[in-house]
């Protein structure tokens, strides 16, 4: 399997691995994928509620080298972006940056979905907080990436 140097880089030195503390303010979580497919990504973003800018991001991924690299890259890219800007990140950009081969494109799609899930979770919590009530739920995104046996 020929990996691009960038994928190897992210694998050897993943950026922002970890989790935020459970009680930290402004944290939202997106979890996508399924163990049966061989890919599960958990992306957490820490949003400044006043500015709506993502100040920090962390990830944990169960998956192949390309999946790890995709999610690691995403934590770098979303920092300093507003929620809307983060939502505009396309999987094609991730795939291009990492030089993913066709068979690994789905990893970049999953990473894009992880961003959407995290943002959706933040908006959920924000709306619920506005309605009066904190929640610790994790939003699992609907996706049809793989159909295992």
């Amino acid at each position, binding site marked *: *399997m020929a*990996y691009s140097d960038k994928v*190897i880089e992210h*694998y050897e030195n*993943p950026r922002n*691995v970890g*989790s935020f503390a459970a009680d930290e303010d402004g944290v939202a979580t997106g*979890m*996508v*994928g*399924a*163990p*049966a*497919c*061989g*890919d*599960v*990504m*958990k992306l957490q973003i820490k949003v400044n509620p006043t500015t709506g800018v993502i100040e920090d991001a962390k990830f*944990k*991924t*169960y*998956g*192949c*080298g390309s*999946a*790890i690299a995709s999610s690691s890259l995403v934590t770098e890219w979303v920092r300093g972006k507003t929620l809307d800007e983060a939502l505009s990140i396309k999987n094609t950009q991730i795939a291009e940056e990492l030089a993913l081969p066709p*068979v690994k494109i789905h990893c970049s799609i999953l990473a894009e979905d992880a961003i959407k899930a995290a943002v959706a979770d933040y908006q959920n919590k924000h709306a619920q907080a506005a309605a009066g009530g904190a929640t610790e739920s994790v939003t*699992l*995104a*609907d*996706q*049809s*990436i793989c*159909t*295992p*046996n």
Partner: protein
Amino acid sequence: MTTLIVQPNRPVYLDYAATTPVDPRVAAKMIPYLTERFGNPASRSHAYGWAAEEAVELAREQVSLLIGADPREIVWTSGATESNNLAIKGAAQFYKSKGKHLITLATEHKAVLDTMREMEREGWEVTVLPVLDTGLVDIDAFKAAIRPDTVLASVMFVNNETGVIQDIETLGQICRSQGVLFHVDAAQATGKVHIDLSVMPIDLMSMSAHKSYGPKGVGALYVRRKPRVRIDALMHGGGHERGMRSGTLPTHQIVGMGEAYHLASKEMAVELERIRSLRDHLWAGLSRMDHVQINGDFEHRTPNHLNVSFNYVEGESLLMGMKDIAVSSGSACTSASLEPSYVLRAMGRSDELAHSSVRFTIGRYTTLEEIDFTIARVSDVVTKLREMSPLWDMVQAGIDLNSIQWAAH
């Protein structure tokens, strides 16, 4: 602490089940037949041919000695895949007036399963039996699958992924008592388990050279003479190999297979003990980690195989972290089809466990240093990947992963 120095483009080789290096002693025997004794073994009229024929017949004896057969029961082929094709297609065709039902197992090599699929396309009926979670087939289920129109059952001796050894003796006796031909794919078995066809109820047996320190591109099919088994040929031409497989015999290849099997006869007993202790040492080291399990029956297994699942870690990412060790994985990402190992699935393993499985196979040239190096490297990578794994987090927090609604499928 191991001081093993691994060369950049030569990882530690622990993939002996995929293929083996040609033993230098085998290579030495082969080379004269490329440049000096190059005659066609079928040239009966001159010394070049006679010398080649002599070498071929010696090799035939060497192969038959390892497996307890008569040399006249050995047919040279291009490898175990061809032997499997020849056995199944050849026997099914020859005996088709007796019936058109075939039996095999879900864990067979693709060379058998795909051939069976082809037989189905051509009008045969095939029963593919499931296996237990140990990888062994249920004997009663096997017995029950036999019908009056069953002509052949094909069961591999040793599974390539797990090393599980089927109860060939019992299955063969059942076939014999019902008049069903018994074909055994022994590609992974020669030189690893004791085979004596003078007492085992096997009618057709496929063999490979390159799994036993011989060259790639040559194998053999054992075809029983007593009682006589007949097969239609697949390769037609000059009538070589008693009409069962035409084509000029590749003397150098056959000499290689013969010498490899000869060395196996001599050295198998001692070598397997050494390999077994290395394999057990590897498992002792790896099993110090939590949530690590062996795939396949622990007892009925060849001494060189170790198929392990490292829970909550994906197989391809694991292999990426161990580029200096050559192994195989049951993960979908590492197979061409993006599907997890069908053998592990047939054993009831979940997709996740199939994804996180690694096959280590030990061989003639494996050293203790290499095993210690492997234990250390694998432990490091598994630890690092678990720290990155959301599944590991959840398990540590006491969450049952089966209770989570993952994506809608």
